């Protein structure tokens, strides 16, 4: 299953809903303000790391760049993808849910 999240961790309600429903083996695609969750050393990144140890986490490169977050600032075990990679994830996952 592919979860798409465009809210930052400080918009707590959608993130709380996501973290309560996500399952082992799922993939999380972070876009727009959702990319703030992977900034190394942030409270959001620590929360994500604690909650999602069995999860594949991907983050959208242009949305990182738009927010001035460099590749070096992205937490470990996160894959940076372009829009083509986002499309591939949508192809690879038959069930897709946008957390809005």
């Amino acid at each position: 299953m592919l979860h798409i999240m465009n809210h930052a961790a400080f918009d707590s309600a959608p993130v709380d809903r996501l973290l309560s429903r996500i399952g082992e083996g799922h993939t999380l695609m972070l876009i727009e303000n959702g990319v703030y969750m992977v900034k190394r050393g942030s409270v959001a990144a620590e929360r994500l790391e604690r909650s999602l140890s069995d999860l594949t986490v991907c983050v959208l490169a242009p949305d990182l760049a738009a927010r001035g977050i460099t590749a070096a600032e992205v937490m470990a075990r996160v894959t940076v993808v372009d829009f083509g990679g986002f499309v591939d994830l949508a192809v690879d996952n038959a069930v897709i849910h946008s957390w809005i």
Partner: protein
Amino acid sequence: MDSTHTPPTMKFAIQINSGPYQSESSESAYQFVRAALRKGHEVYRVFFYYDGIDNAFRYASPPDDEKSMVQRWSQLARRHDIDLVVCISAAQRRGLLCIEEARRVGKVDPDLADGFRISGLGQLVEAAIEADRLLVFSA
């Protein structure tokens, strides 16, 4: 992961729930659609719902040095023959009328931009059935 991976060809349906000046969702959806087309996938339909109908206003006039999401969608529809469908209830609530409806309620202009059509929620249901994947972009 990069974009060199070659997945099977699929049909995508896209739902957009917010306007171009409300959130990044229109931009994200637009870039996703372009990337899917570049990879040889089909985009079966883009359905504009709730404030997403703001993407279809013909007379939206941003400054010349600023992108126009309305024009981008119109061009994409023209180049790739993509079905851009605006939810009729959401549109009429917000004053976006096709020419027939405008005439019916005594107004004169067609507000709908080129490449868009107004139809019902059934078109979203049909897209969800016909497409392999449905992605929702929202504020």
